[in-house]
């Protein structure tokens, strides 16, 4: 993406020439919003332990449809990366573009629960009765991310994205066990949704902005969209097939 590269260097130049130390950028505002486009060699002590800012620079369509500030987006990014981390098998959630996938989803039908029954009266109900919140997924994510940040500050006196991976895991575990209080929904519910959305972003067709380069599929041995297996389905041996996306049709 030559276009992207040009933009990046413009921002890099801006950062360089603005005379502001990189560390001071963290924490929001116009300048903080550029951190996501920061450069590789910027691993100073104040760089968040979580997302390496450079991780997002690969993404073809960076930009927010739902999120507004970079801090929230980084909290989401780091949480998804803990759920689906980079390892020797291949990329984690961030490199796969999962945070961008979630951003897009929250901005659309998924985020506004437009195909679901959202009329009251609302009651908590039994677990066997399923989702009963008055909140949309967008509401739940927004609040959940605030709560992750809040919990990080409470427990470690630091922003979520600045925590050590083990500290992030501690907080995510507390959410998964419903030990954090949320309003109109539960932490466990938010966590389950976050986990599902992470996997959805890792493994859906790349047109949804996740599964970057089909690497999610490649790791898993899933060939994506293939027209037919009729010629190979009776074969004993495992078939390694280079994946194809719908866009390549």
């Amino acid at each position: 993406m030559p276009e992207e590269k040009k933009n990046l260097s413009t921002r890099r130049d801006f950062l360089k020439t603005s005379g502001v130390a990189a560390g001071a950028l963290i924490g929001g505002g116009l300048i903080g919003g550029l951190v996501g486009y920061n450069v590789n060699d910027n691993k100073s002590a104040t760089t968040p332990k979580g997302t390496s800012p450079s991780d997002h620079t690969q993404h073809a369509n960076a930009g927010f449809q739902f999120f507004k500030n970079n801090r929230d987006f980084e909290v989401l990014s780091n949480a998804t990366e803990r759920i689906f981390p980079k390892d020797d098998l291949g990329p984690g959630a961030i490199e796969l573009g999962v945070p961008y996938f979630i951003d897009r989803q929250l901005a659309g039908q998924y985020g506004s629960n437009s195909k679901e029954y959202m009329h009251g009266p609302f009651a908590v109900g039994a677990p066997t009765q399923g989702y009963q919140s008055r909140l949309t997924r967008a509401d739940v994510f927004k609040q959940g991310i605030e709560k992750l940040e809040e919990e990080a500050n409470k427990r470690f006196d630091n922003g979520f994205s600045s925590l050590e991976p083990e500290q992030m895991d501690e907080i995510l575990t507390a959410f998964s066990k419903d030990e954090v209080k949320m309003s109109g929904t539960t932490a466990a519910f938010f966590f389950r949704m976050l986990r599902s959305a992470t996997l959805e972003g890792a493994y859906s067709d790349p047109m949804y902005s996740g599964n970057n380069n089909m690497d999610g599929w490649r790791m898993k041995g899933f060939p994506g969209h293939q027209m037919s297996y009729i010629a190979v389905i009776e074969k004993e041996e495992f078939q390694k097939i280079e994946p194809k996306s719908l866009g390549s049709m």
Partner: protein
Amino acid sequence: MATTLPKVDVVVVGLGWTGGIIAAECAKAGLKVLGLERGEARNTEDYLKVHDEYRYAVRYELMQNLSKETITIRNHRKMPALPMRQLSSFLLGEGLGGSGTHWNGHSWRFLPYDFQIKTMTDEKYGPNKLSKDYLLQDWGVTYDELEPYFYKYEQTLGISGEDTNPFWGKRAQPFPTPPMKKTPILKKFESATKKMGYNPFMLPSANLSEPYTNPDGAAINSCQYCGFCERFGCEYGAKSSPEITVIPTAEKTNNFEMRFRSNVVEVIKNGNKVSGVKYLDTLSGEEFIQEAEVVVLSSYVMNNAKLLMVSNIGEQYNPDTGRGTLGKNYCYQILPGATGYFDEQMNTFMGAGALGMTIDDFNGDNFDHSDLNFIHGGSISITQTGSRPIETNPIPRDTPTWGAEFKKNSIHNFTRTLGIGTQGASMPHKENFLSLDSTYKDAYGLPLLQMTYNFTEQDRALHKYITEVTQNIMKEMGAKTVEGKNPITDYDIVGYQTTHNTGGTIMGASPDNSVVNTYLQHWDAENLFVVGAGNFPHNGGYNPTGTVGALAYKSAEGIIKYSKSGGSLV
């Protein structure tokens, strides 16, 4: 004010398999048929870009939009019922083809035992095998009476199969097309079950093994094993669906018209007849009254029951008194099974919706229940439907569900895990029923349908027993780790189980214990027919649609006869 529209011979509410079959048969017989469908038209050309797990399998693109209408659910009468806000446990259909567009295509005939379950159970085990709370009853028809209709359905769809199962009812004709390919995964199951003394056979499939033209002239292509079948439409026209079979057959006659985005809200009753239906154009909001000589409800289990309830046709079942038949005998499906983790990689991502092998050794009364605390059983199958990566993340029970360990395990096991599943029978219980909700409403101001349902002792016992059988098969298949399904406790609306809901508008030999007769003609309104799995007095040990289809063909015959001579068909 509703606009009244000119009378037609037959109005069909809902255009899935049942609506499509009735429409085709009646239109062929020269009746003027109108199909009203709340969803949209769709066809094979709409499925060309369908290999998209996220949109179709996860976000349910082809299924019912719950923002307009859903049901409420409670496990028992003391619990406040709450709306099913998201699809999960079952996936309701919407649009041309209904669920027949995105079904798997397992195509079964219920066992002879199913149709006479009360008589045969009592004969063999005495009248107290199950407590009085289980409302077991015969269906009013026998397998032998239904045999020709089963075949008609199978011929229309071109079902691929082999008649080697020693346990099912006698077939007068061979399957229209040969069985699907026996893959290495299926062969593992075959040799294990054979070794154990069971009788494996290829699962009868509506994903066709070869190109086929049905007796009505509709062509179905041969399956490509593309792995995007269950929850997807078939881009090859190789999965038998209403929109490539019965619908074009009806259209060819020039006696058939379809109106989409037409949501029926009432069946209009006058004395012992109905005069038509009221529906809304969901775009303009306009109301219409469509008059008809015959009204056919084919809007699936839920709305067939609901439309009768809101239209005050028939008597609502009351679990306190046992009076009333409408809403009675709601059943589901019990799903015992086992997962096996293997060392070797297998082509789990290839497959077709109905590619599988089955044993019936533990179905119906094919095994002795004298020393067991349940009746019936289920068909046990291995299926290779095509694993997809978002929803298939197999991990042994002690593995974390997120993080590094999860990632490693779920990726490793994606191509190394097999499942054995059972379509377990579900027996009616006096506390499981459908009624109208008194709080929640749909987009048209009608009360939502309310489901009161929980698993019973019978269900739990069946589940436990058959799960053990499936675990043993999986061990024999060579899995290094085998996990049986957790014992069932309370019915939970979360997590897909199966779209095999049954009952609520049951059929039978007498108006005292059924809603419709054996032609699915309503006991209280002779020109009203109610068609679907709602007619089942209990759910058997197979997927339902083969039996639904046979009943629909029998009903169509009844409607045609009624149109000539009127009166009760029984």
